């Protein structure tokens, strides 16, 4: 019902000011793609060991923090602009960051979660919060409270530009020239790289042996163990992949917004978690869908309502979803006792 109202509202907005709505949707989809990358890590880890990996948002930030000095190794500083020669370097750094991030997350799992695997549920959750603070503290100690400037390596050029007619309801008729909509190469690059990563992930989960082991472990850990699956290795692999995706997300975020701060991961992580819950926690397609929806909701809210309320709206959605539809849009797991 409320979804229907929201869709009607969006249609009304579109009829009134198509250019503004499309521009907003572009922002929303781009942001949503980044949230989806982070949400995937939450949902995978939750799917396999039923832990809300609180430190995941900070692992996401860590991706950007690791990427900056690695780019610096190749002589890319904050002033560097886009050039084709940087593309292979960028890809290489991406892979490196994803790997390093994965290793960090495996270490976290080994140190803080594995010893508590048979403990009551709240114990690993508390260490996860502790880990989140440790990561944030380490990044704070490393780079301080300032926003780091990130090189603007993605091209600023416009991918496609088209004019749009004035609003149908005549409210927008004051403007004489038809407004322009710009879709930047940046946005396209972000969405494409996310789609590529999600496709790779889905192939990995559905087609490889390790992916099969993961699905089996998520379904029934004891039975999987009886079938000869190395549980610890499978869980480590899940943490590695989740962190690799988050690291890529952190890099993409930093490249897109050209700035990153040590505490970025707290709010972003919570928003991404909301996305995972909205899509249905434990469900990979759900996380991607939830990420996109949350991105679009946020962008709509920022344009048509108020940016200072967007976190309130998102966290409100989180509470509402958990209260009224704990399974999310696509999920099957029930977060109730």
């Amino acid at each position, binding site marked *: 019902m409320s979804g229907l109202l929201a869709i009607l509202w969006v249609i009304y907005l579109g009829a009134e000011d198509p250019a503004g709505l499309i521009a907003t949707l572009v922002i929303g989809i781009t942001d949503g793609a980044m949230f989806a990358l982070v949400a995937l890590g939450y949902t995978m880890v939750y799917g396999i060991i039923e832990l809300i990996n609180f430190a995941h948002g900070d692992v996401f930030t860590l991706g950007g923090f690791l990427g900056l000095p690695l780019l610096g190794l190749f002589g890319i500083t904050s002033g560097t602009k886009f050039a084709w020669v940087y593309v292979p370097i960028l890809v290489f750094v991406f892979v490196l960051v994803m790997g390093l991030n994965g290793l960090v997350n495996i270490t976290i799992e080994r140190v803080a979660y594995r010893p508590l695997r048979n403990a009551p549920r709240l114990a690993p959750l508390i260490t996860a919060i502790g880990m989140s603070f440790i990561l944030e503290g380490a990044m704070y100690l490393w780079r301080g409270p300032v926003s780091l400037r990130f090189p603007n390596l993605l091209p600023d050029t416009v991918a496609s530009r088209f004019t749009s007619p004035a609003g149908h309801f005549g409210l927008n008729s004051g403007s004489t020239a038809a407004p322009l909509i710009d879709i930047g190469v940046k946005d396209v690059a972000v969405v494409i790289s996310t789609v590529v990563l999600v496709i790779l992930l889905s192939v990995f989960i559905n087609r490889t042996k390790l992916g099969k082991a993961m699905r089996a472990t998520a379904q029934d850990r004891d039975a999987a163990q009886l079938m000869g699956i190395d549980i610890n290795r499978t869980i480590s692999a899940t943490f590695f992949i989740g962190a690799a995706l988050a690291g890529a997300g952190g890099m993409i975020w930093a490249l897109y917004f050209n700035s990153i701060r040590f505490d970025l991961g*707290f709010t972003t992580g919570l928003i991404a978690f909301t996305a995972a819950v909205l899509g249905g926690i434990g469900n990979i397609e759900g996380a991607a869908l939830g990420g996109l929806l949350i991105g679009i909701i946020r962008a709509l809210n920022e344009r048509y309502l108020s940016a200072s309320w967007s976190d309130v709206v998102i966290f409100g959605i989180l509470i509402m979803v958990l209260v009224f539809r704990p399974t999310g849009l696509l999920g099957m797991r029930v977060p109730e006792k």
Partner: protein
Amino acid sequence: MIATLRDPKRLRAKLRQWSRDPYMVVYGVLFVAAVIFPPLASFATGTSTLTGLAADAGVWVLLAIGLNVVVGFAGLLDLGYAAFFAIGAYTYALLASAQLRSSPLHQAVHLPFWVLLFLAMFVAASAGAILGAPTLRLRGDYLAIVTLGFGEIVPRVFRNDPGHWTGGINAIGGIDQPTIPVCLDGPWSQGDDFKLQFGAVNCSFSLSDPTAYYVLMVILIIACVILVTNLQISRLGRAWAAVREDEVAAAAMGVNTRNIKLLAFGIGAAFSGFGGAYYGAKLSLVSPDNFDFTVSITVLVMVVLGGMGNIPGVILGALAVYFLEFKFLTDLPRNAAALANQVGLQGLLAPNAATSWPGLEDFVGRLNFLVLGLILVLMMLLRPQGILPSRVRAQELKAEGAADDTVFDARAGQT
């Protein structure tokens, strides 16, 4: 009780019994320390700054005792505890300052502190009940996330200042100081000149002399400790323990789990609102920045460090974390610089920076997050029962396999 006190023999027996009880020893030491602290601190430093700090520490003790009811007794993880603290503080700030004159109400309200202390408690408890009623059926970790979301929403709402009620980022300043009730400071007080005094202790509340705040805080804490201890050993306390250990079994035994959990949530929130009202009065300024996630986590660290479910442990944990965060780490750069200068290291400094050690202050200022995180992780991994383990817990740890599915004993089942 009176009979025990009259009879020296029984009194001696009672004292001997208490001296064997580690809890009573901790309480006794804490009480004596609380009584001798203000004169000692003002004698040592010549000012009452330390007493003011101790009164602030008391707010945290109160918060930790309250969170302990939720986390320790009932086993519900509340990550948005600062929200109730904020609600309490804002209740006091709005109803005891000129803030509402600039709100749509156009009328400043100045209710007395003693009324608002309980009103703030009630408002915070209601907020806890309203949040808890629909969400308490969620599983523990989801409940934690819901409370976290709530804890993020509340300060943001205060900051966004809907309808110009809360002052937004400008905060609410000029909040009324408490006054001694008329029954103590009545017609015989001869106007404003009179100050209720016990010896050298000035008993009026002022920003310059925090002694009265300190005394009030000690009284509040004593009252709360008695209250919570009685709650713990009451029917309700046993029901909380049952729900914490095994909710299904508790429900099967006829415990109304939803109401029991709601009560824990509401009582915890009430403590937080209580502390919030006091905090608003003490600081005379309430700003949305004072209630962020770090506050909730700091209180959680206090509870985890002290030992969940264990009141004297939690008090010690709160004092230890407060000292570490707000005294030791803040003073560390100055002290380290003084030490370095004393042992003759100032020759190493660049001549233009002869007074302070560059980078040290910055470095220490950045340690907070790391320290909090390390305490949480290390405590959960190495000593999940806390620095002062609860008696019940110690017994349960002895009984083999009894503590298989509990909140505190994180390593049970591993051995």
